[in-house]
């Protein structure tokens, strides 16, 4: 991946997230987040993960964003804008987060790449990422995959239990 492109994407993702976080108007925040999601998708694409890029757009920029917008429609925007954006504890939060960030920066020198599996970048590039993902997801990882289906089922049932107007 072109280092300049990566630099731009990384800076844009961090910058857009920071700007989205500080917006008082939730609609602005959500719109900035969509732009951020698209940058993220391009980043995945540049890394040869085209399936992840597509999912990023369909699921995050598509489905989850719509959900967010629905939630925002139920808010009283005027009231939201008048209130404070952050609660009183934010200096503590930001110092903890930056401390963690510094720690991670210091540690990057100790990152040793682990053992490589059979799916090297060349192999994935030759048979496409989607095919490689599918062939392990439905064989080697079939058990976690089925387990994830239970997690999703519980999410659906839970949402109905908590939100349905009248349960029998």
């Amino acid at each position, binding site marked *: 991946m072109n280092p300049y492109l990566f630099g731009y994407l990384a800076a844009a993702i961090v910058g857009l997230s920071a700007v989205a976080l500080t917006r008082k108007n939730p609609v602005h925040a959500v719109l900035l987040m969509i732009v951020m999601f698209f940058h993220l998708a391009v980043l995945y694409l540049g890394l040869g993960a085209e399936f992840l890029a597509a999912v990023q757009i369909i699921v995050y920029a598509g489905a989850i964003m719509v959900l967010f917008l629905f939630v925002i429609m139920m808010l009283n925007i005027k009231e939201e804008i008048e209130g404070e954006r952050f609660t009183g504890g934010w200096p503590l939060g930001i110092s903890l987060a930056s401390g963690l960030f510094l720690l991670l920066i210091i540690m990057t020198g100790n990152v040793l790449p682990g053992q490589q599996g059979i799916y090297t970048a060349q192999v994935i590039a030759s048979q496409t990422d989607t095919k490689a993902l599918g062939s392990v997801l439905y064989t080697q990882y079939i058990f976690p995959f089925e387990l994830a289906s239970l997690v999703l*089922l519980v999410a659906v049932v839970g949402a109905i*239990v908590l939100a349905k107007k009248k349960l029998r």
Partner: protein
Amino acid sequence: MPEFLRTQVMVILPEALLAVFAMAVLLLDLVVKRKGILAALTIGAAVCGFFALSGTGGGGSAWGGMFIADGYGFFFKIIFLASLVLSVLVSSRYLIEEDINHGEYYALMLFSTIGMMVMASAGDLITLYLGLELMSLCLYVLSGFIRGSLRSNEAAIKYFMLGSFASALLLFGISLTYGLTGTTAIDGVAKYIAAHGLAGNPVLAFATVLYVSAFGFKIAAVPFHMWAPDVYEGAPTPVTAFMSVGPKAAGFAVIGRVLLVALSQMSFEWTGLVIALSIMSMAAGNILAIAQTNIKRMLAYSSIAHAGYALLGIIALSPEGLASTLSYLFIYAFMNIGAFTVVTLLTTKGVKAEDLKEYVGLSKTHPFLAALMLIFMFSLTGIPPTAGFIGKFYLFTAAIKAGYTWLAVVAVVMSAISAYFYLRVVMYMYMKEPEGEVKLERSYGARLALGVTALAVLVIGMMPAGLVEFARSAIAGFRG
């Protein structure tokens, strides 16, 4: 079915059976008007699960080592199934009294149990994470099950927010481990660390901190305990009973799998952390419990303190220590569910029975119930001849044998402090005059659960050999 698939399915048979039952409960909920039938079905599921477990007990691993059905997992699954059955027995009447008698309740309990069982058998960090999410998601919903109650809503949202945060920490830890070792298999990680001399690597140490934080959250150890009092208080009481036992045991199960197996080479780094967690939990749990006037909050702080005790066996880093933690969790399941069952029995329409004052003079109005509560309080304090004493005895012995005499002394001092608030309940029940009539819930299930838990607490207290032997044999094949 092809032979290789059949052997694989046989290994996960208990979980698969429970999943089938859970979905059956969801479907039957549409046609069944009497939800008691669903409760019976849930208990039936647990019984089937139990028999399937006994059949496949030491059944080896499946799905390329992602799922391990060994004695260690078997022991924990017995705890989960027992706590499921007991909580369901307690629930059925409570749900009617609180007007939340919906069939989804039982399905969510079942799914949550499946999640815990997967956690206890996880051979891969991905399986572990998915099991943990399955368990937690169900619990978030269950704690908010009284939809009309603000406290229940608060409990659910708090649990969800902080729980998701803990999950994120866990995922971050898993991704760092994967980056360093190139594998998510738990024994694969251990092998890679040993082969490449990664022990003491700062990034891996950071991942270890993340694991300890995430699991500390699940077992409600200080400083990751903040959610526990509010959630325990707001959630429906049988759910509180369930989640103070099952998920805590599941948290310990994955601590065993990750800290004692995957990160066994990093034990120098994590024992310090876990010791700190253990001391803080015992101290904060027991001291803050003194100030509580709400019995559910008091039991929440007590459960924090008990997480601290149980960690002693992990710190000991010996088979004996692990066995003592296992048997302690087993005992804790019965005594804690027993105490919560008493609270549930006193909850009738419009009466919460959560304030300590409502226990005043219980020995005069309901002598038998008061006597049982006395047994549970004695057991939680650790007074012989109850099971709680045995559990603590083995934990403290394991800690001393591992050279942590000072830690055992701290634990004993903290247990002495805990006597104050446990015995205060007993004092209220026995030494004060009743202030009016106390009604009991009309529930045979809860009475049965009460009988079973009290009997278990007394029998284990007097004849602990069987349980201790069971715990020892459970960890015999544990690679730690």
